[in-house]
C-alpha cells in the first residue's frame, strides 16, 4: 500500500549503481577482502601465491568453524564465551583417551582415533549442554552462563593434565587430520567446508534452522508461533559447543598434543568475526556465508601483516583499527540498504 513512496531511481542503471547494489547485497566484507588482498600483494611478493592463500585458508579453519558456532549463539541473542575452554577441554580429553587406547592397543590405530575423537567431542559438547540448560531452563544470561562454564571447564582441563601437554597419540591422527592433503588441499579445509555445508543446509533449508532466527528476532513471538524456544536455545548452545569441539579436535591433530592452553582468544575473536560479518549482537540477523568471510578476513589480515613484516605491536593496532573500520563501513552500508529499501 505504500510502495509508491519509494523514490529511489531504480530505472537508471549506472556502474556506480551496480557497485552500490553489490555493496548492499553482499555486504562490506568482499570489498574489504579485495582491498586487503591488493594492499598486501603490493607489500609482499609472497602474499599472492596459491601456496600462501592455501596457507591462509588452512590457518583460518579453526576460527571459521568456531565462528560458525558462535554465530548461532549470537543469532538467538546470546553469546558463547566458553568456546575457548571447549577447544581446550576437547583437546585434552580427546588426546588423553586417544593416547591411552593407542597405548593399550597399538595396532588399533583407527579405533584409538575414533574413540579419542568421540571422547573429546563429547567432553566439549557437554559444556554446551550445561550452557544450554542454564540459558534455556534456568534463564541465566548467556554471558554469565558461558563465562562461568569457561572458568569451570578450564579448571577441569588443567586438573586433568596438571598443566602439561598430553602426548602419545598415533601419528596417523596428526598426519591425516592435521596435515593430510588431497588434490593439494589440506584436510582441515575439507572438514570446514563439510561443516559449513551441513550448517548451511540446516540453517537455511530446514525448519529448525529458521527457528534460530525467529528466537533471536523476537522470542515471545516465536513462542506464540508455536516454536519451542527452550529446545531451540538448548540446541543453539549444544551446536555451538559441538562446532568448537570439532575445531578443538582438528587443532589437536595439527598440534599432535592435547593442550589445555589453547583457544584463549577464540571467544572474542569469533564474536568479532561475526560482528564484522554483520551479525547483530541483539540477535536475529546474520548470514553464514558472511561469517565465514569474516573469519577468513581476520586470518588474511594477520597473515598479510606477517608477510609484510609489520611490527608486532603495530599489527595489534592495525587489526583493532581495521575491525572498527569494518563495522563503520557496514554502518554506511546499512544506510544505503535503508535508502534502497527492498
Amino acid at each position, binding site marked *: 500500500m505504500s510502495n509508491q513512496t519509494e523514490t529511489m531511481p531504480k530505472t537508471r542503471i549506472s556502474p556506480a549503481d551496480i557497485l552500490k547494489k553489490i555493496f548492499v547485497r553482499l555486504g562490506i566484507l568482499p570489498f574489504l577482502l579485495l582491498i586487503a588482498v591488493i594492499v598486501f600483494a603490493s607489500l609482499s611478493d609472497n602474499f599472492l601465491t596459491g601456496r600462501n592463500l592455501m596457507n591462509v585458508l588452512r590457518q583460518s579453519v579453526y576460527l571459521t568453524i568456531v565462528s560458525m558456532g558462535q554465530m548461532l549463539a549470537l543469532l538467538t541473542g546470546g553469546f558463547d564465551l566458553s568456546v575457548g575452554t571447549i577447544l581446550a577441554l576437547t583437546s585434552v580429553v580427546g588426546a588423553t583417551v586417544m593416547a591411552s587406547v593407542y597405548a593399550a592397543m597399538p595396532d588399533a590405530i583407527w579405533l584409538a582415533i575414533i574413540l579419542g575423537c568421540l571422547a573429546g567431542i563429547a567432553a566439549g559438547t557437554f559444556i554446551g549442554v550445561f550452557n544450554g540448560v542454564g540459558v534455556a531452563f534456568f534463564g541465566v544470561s548467556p554471558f554469565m552462563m558461558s563465562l562461568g562454564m569457561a572458568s569451570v571447564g578450564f579448571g577441569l582441563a588443567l586438573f586433568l*593434565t*596438571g598443566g602439561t*601437554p598430553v602426548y602419545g597419540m598415533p601419528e596417523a591422527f596428526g598426519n591425516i587430520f592435521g596435515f593430510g592433503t588431497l588434490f593439494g588441499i589440506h584436510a582441515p579445509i575439507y572438514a570446514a567446508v563439510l561443516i559449513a555445508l551441513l550448517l548451511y543446509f540446516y540453517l537455511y533449508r530446514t525448519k529448525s534452522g529458521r527457528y534460530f532466527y525467529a528466537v533471536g528476532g523476537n522470542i515471545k513471538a516465536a513462542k506464540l508461533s508455536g516454536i519451542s524456544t527452550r529446545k531451540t536455545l538448548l540446541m543453539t548452545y549444544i551446536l555451538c559447543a559441538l562446532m568448537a569441539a570439532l575445531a578443538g579436535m582438528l587443532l589437536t591433530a595439527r598440534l599432535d*598434543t592435547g593442550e589445555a592452553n589453547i583457544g*584463549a582468544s577464540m571467544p572474542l575473536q569469533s564474536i568479532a568475526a561475526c560482528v564484522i560479518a554483520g551479525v547483530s549482537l541483539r540477535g536475529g540477523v546474520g548470514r553464514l556465508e558472511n561469517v565465514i568471510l569474516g573469519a577468513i578476513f581476520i586470518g588474511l589480515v594477520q*597473515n598479510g601483516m606477517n*608477510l609484510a613484516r609489520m611490527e608486532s605491536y603495530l599489527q595489534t593496532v592495525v587489526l583493532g583499527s581495521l575491525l572498527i573500520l569494518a563495522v563503520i563501513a557496514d554502518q554506511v552500508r546499512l544506510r544505503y540498504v535503508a535508502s534502497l529499501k527492498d
Partner: protein
Amino acid sequence: ADWFPVQVQVWEPAFDMNSPRRDINYTPLEKAAKPWDLCVSFPHMKDAYWLGVDYGVTEEAKRLGVKMQVVEAGGYTELNKQISQLEDCVASGADAVIIGAISADGLNNVIKEIRAKNIPVIDVINGISSPELTAKSLVSFGEMGAKTGEYLAKQHPAGSGKVKVAWFPGPSGAGWVEAGNSGFTGAIAGSDIELVETKYGDTGKEVQAKLVEDTLEAHPDLAYVVGTAVTAEAAIPILRSRDLTGQVKVASYYFTPGVEQGLRRGQIVAAPTDSTVLQGRIAVDIAVRALEGKPYEKHVGPALYVVDGDNLKDFDASSTLAPKGFSPIFTVE
C-alpha cells in the same frame, strides 16, 4: 665490546638434557657469507625477559650482517597463532627459523614440515621435543628452578631449623612453569625448606601481587617468597608496606631488570641467570652456520649460575638483559 669468547656447555649426545655435558669456549662466525633471511618466533614480547632474547638475536643479526624478522604470538595461550606465524615466515621466504616455543610438543608437526623444505630450525630458550631440530641453544628451565631450590636448600640444610617458603611458579599449564616447578620442588627435597604454598597465576603484576598478599595473610610466619621475576618485583613494595622487608626474603627463579634492581637494593636475595641474551646470540650464529654448511654445536647453552649479593658486582648484565632504554626490534634489514 664483543661478547665472545664465552664459556658454554655442550650436551652430547644432543637433544637430551640428561646427557653428559662439557664446557667449551664458544666463538661465533665473524660475518655471514651472505645476508640470509632469518625468522624468529617468540611466545610474546610483553616482558623484559623476552626483550632480552630479542636484544640478543637482533644484535647478533646486525653483527653477522643477516636480515631478520621477529614475530610474537601474544602470549602462552596462542599456540595456534605461533604455528600460523611460523608458516607465514616460511611463506615469506625465511632461510632459517629460530623458535622460542609456546609448547614443547605442539610445534613438532609444523617443524617437520619446515624441515622437509630443508630450512634449519633452531630451538631457543624454551625447548622443543622434536627430533628433527637442527640445533638447540638453551638451558633447561627445570634447572633454573632447581638452581633456585638448591640455593635455598644450601642456606637451610636439614637440621638448621624449618623455614616456610611460598612458591609462585607462574601461570598453570605453561611448559616452562611446569618444568621450573618440578626442578624447584626436586631441589628443596630433604632440606629444611617447608613448601607451604604453591600458587599458580598469570605473570601480570597485579595478579601476582594479590597472590602474595593473600599468602602473607594465610602464613604470617613466612620466611621466603620465591617465584617468577614478576612475583619478586610485586612482593617488594608489599613487604615494604607491611614492614616485613628482611623478615620475609624474596627470590626469583629467572632474571629481569627489576630483579637486578632488587638485587642491587638488597630487596631480592638471589636469582639464577640463564644468560638469555647469549642464548639468543648463539642461536643466530648456529642458524647461519647451518645455512652455510659450517660446523656447529647441536646442543649448547650458557652455564647457569645464581646471582646473589656476593657475586653481584662481577655479574655482567649484558649477557642477560637488554640495555636500559632498549626498545624491541622486529626487523633487521
